[in-house]
């Protein structure tokens, strides 16, 4: 057999360049999408209990957009892991936070991260913000077959900075891939009911400022920790702050200068002065 180079996306004058997920499938590096026909409905006691990650939240504040997630991963009533990272960096200005099955979600994040880079390198320009938001939507849509089979449901939040409009942007999705732009805040996962209630209250009546958008960084972080603690108080699948081992939620901030991850020591200081 003669050595040959793989067929490239543009070799056959395709109108639009092939997307990275399709390229991976062609190379056998990514599982094909599950069919949504012939779906057997999940049994009442499924053979496989998937590991799931839970509560994540995001809101806009004075210095950008804050994204936070607790650290717990569960399978049914078992705690699988208490140091899960559900707030994933996709590029210099974008975060994807995940609730749902980590196996699928982490792979989605990986595909997303690589596809933005792949697009920039092959097309010699950055993917537009709309393109990025849409790319996640398409991955969710491709995953629908697995969702219908009762495994692999992912409900993410996508946060990024819009350099054209000079404002942070926040999107949340449903499991089928519909995207919604959030004006002030978003939360998904099993503890999201409590978190949304807290954020709605704070945004409407809370504090002297009565708006999340006016919060300073320390107050925003404090609110995020309080909201996750509130969710953890009623939802066993949400981790909150682990006081014994000092495991804190992951808290990241996006603004025009990029992504900042809050250090454990800073979270610990805020927690101990205002929450403990």
């Amino acid at each position, binding site marked *: 057999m*003669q*050595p*040959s*180079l*793989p067929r*490239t*996306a*543009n*070799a056959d004058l395709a109108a639009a360049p092939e997307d*990275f997920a399709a*390229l*991976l499938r062609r*190379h056998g*590096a*990514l599982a094909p999408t599950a069919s949504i026909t012939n779906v057997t409905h999940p049994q009442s006691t499924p053979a496989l209990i998937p590991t799931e990650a839970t509560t994540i939240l995001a809101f806009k504040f004075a210095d950008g957009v804050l994204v936070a997630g607790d650290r717990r991963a569960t399978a049914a009533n078992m705690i699988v892991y208490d140091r899960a990272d559900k707030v994933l960096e996709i590029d*210099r200005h974008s975060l994807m936070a995940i609730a749902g099955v980590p196996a699928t979600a982490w792979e989605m994040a*990986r*595909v997303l991260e*690589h596809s933005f*880079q*792949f697009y*920039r*390198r*092959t097309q*010699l320009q950055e993917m537009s913000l709309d393109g990025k938001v849409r790319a996640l939507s398409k991955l969710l849509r491709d995953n629908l077959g697995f969702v219908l089979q009762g495994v692999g449901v992912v409900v993410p939040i996508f946060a990024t900075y819009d350099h054209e409009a000079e404002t942070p942007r926040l999107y949340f999705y449903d499991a089928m891939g519909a995207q919604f732009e959030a004006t002030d805040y978003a939360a998904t996962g099993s503890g999201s009911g409590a978190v949304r209630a807290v954020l709605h209250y704070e945004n409407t009546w809370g504090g002297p400022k009565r708006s999340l958008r006016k919060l300073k960084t320390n107050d925003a972080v404090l609110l995020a920790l309080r909201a996750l603690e509130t969710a953890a108080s009623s939802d066993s699948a949400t981790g909150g702050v682990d006081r014994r081992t000092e495991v804190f939620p992951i808290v990241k901030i996006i603004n025009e200068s990029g992504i900042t991850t809050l250090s454990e020591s800073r979270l610990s200081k805020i927690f101990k002065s205002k929450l403990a």
Partner: protein
Amino acid sequence: MIEEPYRWVEAIANRREYIEHQLAAGSPIVALSFADGILLFALSRERQKIFEIYDRIAMGGIGHPGDIERLRLVAIELCSTEGFARSAHDVSLRRLANFSLSPALKAAFEQVYGAPYLARLLFAELGRGTASNVFLRLDYDGGIHTNGGAFGRSFEQFGVIAGTKVATNHMEEYLRGQELPNLSFKEALLLASKTWAVGHLTLNAEARDDAPDKSAIAADLKEQLAATSVECAVLERGSGLPMTWRSIPDTDARSILEKA
């Protein structure tokens, strides 16, 4: 006809001559190590010549734009799929060139009924940790010339390509006379531009001609700067990100070059 060995050799020789003729006008591309990483430089008239391939790999190409583009896309695809399926640490220039690109280029070159790739490529890879930077020239016939490291040679801290062998040799000789690894960005940019001018001046020179002198280099650079755009990019250590590529805008590089 070409089943006869002699005819085949003749066909290959003709083909080589044809390709060398096509490439001869290719203006130089320079890559060299400096304190923060690798700098790539070219002055270009019509199209982009220096590209990002992966986190730590960059490419420059001369030849037919269609062929350069095909090879560029293939290189990105191979690196991206490997980086996704395994990890970015498993992507290496050595594997990309030796196992994928070189055999395919050789096959295309020697199948005399098919079209060869009209391209000569320069690759640079930023070394991880204490590993040395790799510079690699890949030719249309699959030939690979690296900056050493094998057979007890020490690594040279640069790689260049140009349309002709004479120009390439002159540029390499020019760079061998310099102290390289600890240049600042500005010093590296100035040295790269002078090296480029050496290559540009000697493109049509004979092997025995003397290297251009200082004033000829300065004059050529001044003249060319006025007529071209400056293409400059770095692969930079210490950004804290996996991605190391940064392209330097024409205006920034130009202001440094015009002040010198």
